[in-house]
């Protein structure tokens, strides 16, 4: 199982701040495609991704037990 965290408008659109995907491993790209289909989260094309609190590229692999966070453009400060 891979844990997914959603923030800001992604969270509101999905209606949840947390999802789980039952997979042993997947690239971030594939994971985004799954979520785009299942939750209509087209915004995922324009977000960054963190695996276990570190930014990664779309071709990185997430494994069961990892926490994947989708990070929309940030606006702190």
């Amino acid at each position, binding site marked *: 199982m891979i844990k997914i*965290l959603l*923030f*800001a*408008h992604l969270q*509101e659109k999905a209606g949840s701040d947390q999802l789980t995907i039952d997979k042993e491993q997947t690239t*971030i790209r594939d994971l985004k495609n799954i979520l785009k289909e299942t939750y209509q989260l087209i915004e995922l094309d*324009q977000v*960054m*991704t*963190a*695996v*276990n*609190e*570190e*930014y*990664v*590229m*779309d071709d*990185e692999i997430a494994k069961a037990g990892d926490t994947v*966070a989708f*990070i*929309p*453009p*940030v*606006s*702190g*400060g």
Partner: protein
Amino acid sequence: MNELFEIVEEPIEVEAVIKKVERREAGAITTFIGTVREWTRGRRTVYLKYQAYVPMAVKMLAKIGEEINEKWPNTEVAISHRIGHLDISDIAVVIAVSSPHRKAAYEANEYAIERIKQIVPIWKKEHWEDGETWIGDQLEKVPYPNGKPDVKDEKHD
């Protein structure tokens, strides 16, 4: 001593952040205080909500501190960012930098706020008189062409 890098839900005390960077060898301390502004491009803000991915945000703030120590040796940095509901004039962020000389203290401080707006997972939702919006990408760059921002020296583990 309190943590140098923190995400808090309570009001930030500026003096407390400054205290964290005071040192006998420092002749200069700069602080940046980001407050909630009432007017943005002719539109009136009533209040804001900040959301954060807290553990990662703390980690990224600490990373900014490391970057600064590399670029400006012998500086000390503390950053507190508040989340939750903030009213006009409330303090959202305080950055304090101490250094033996003032030039580094100014430069490092400005670098910190720029980097916060690039890599720290915090989001602002503006509540206007006539609606609300999640604010993204305040630096008005194109959405990260590589799928990730410019983050150095970082490994996925």
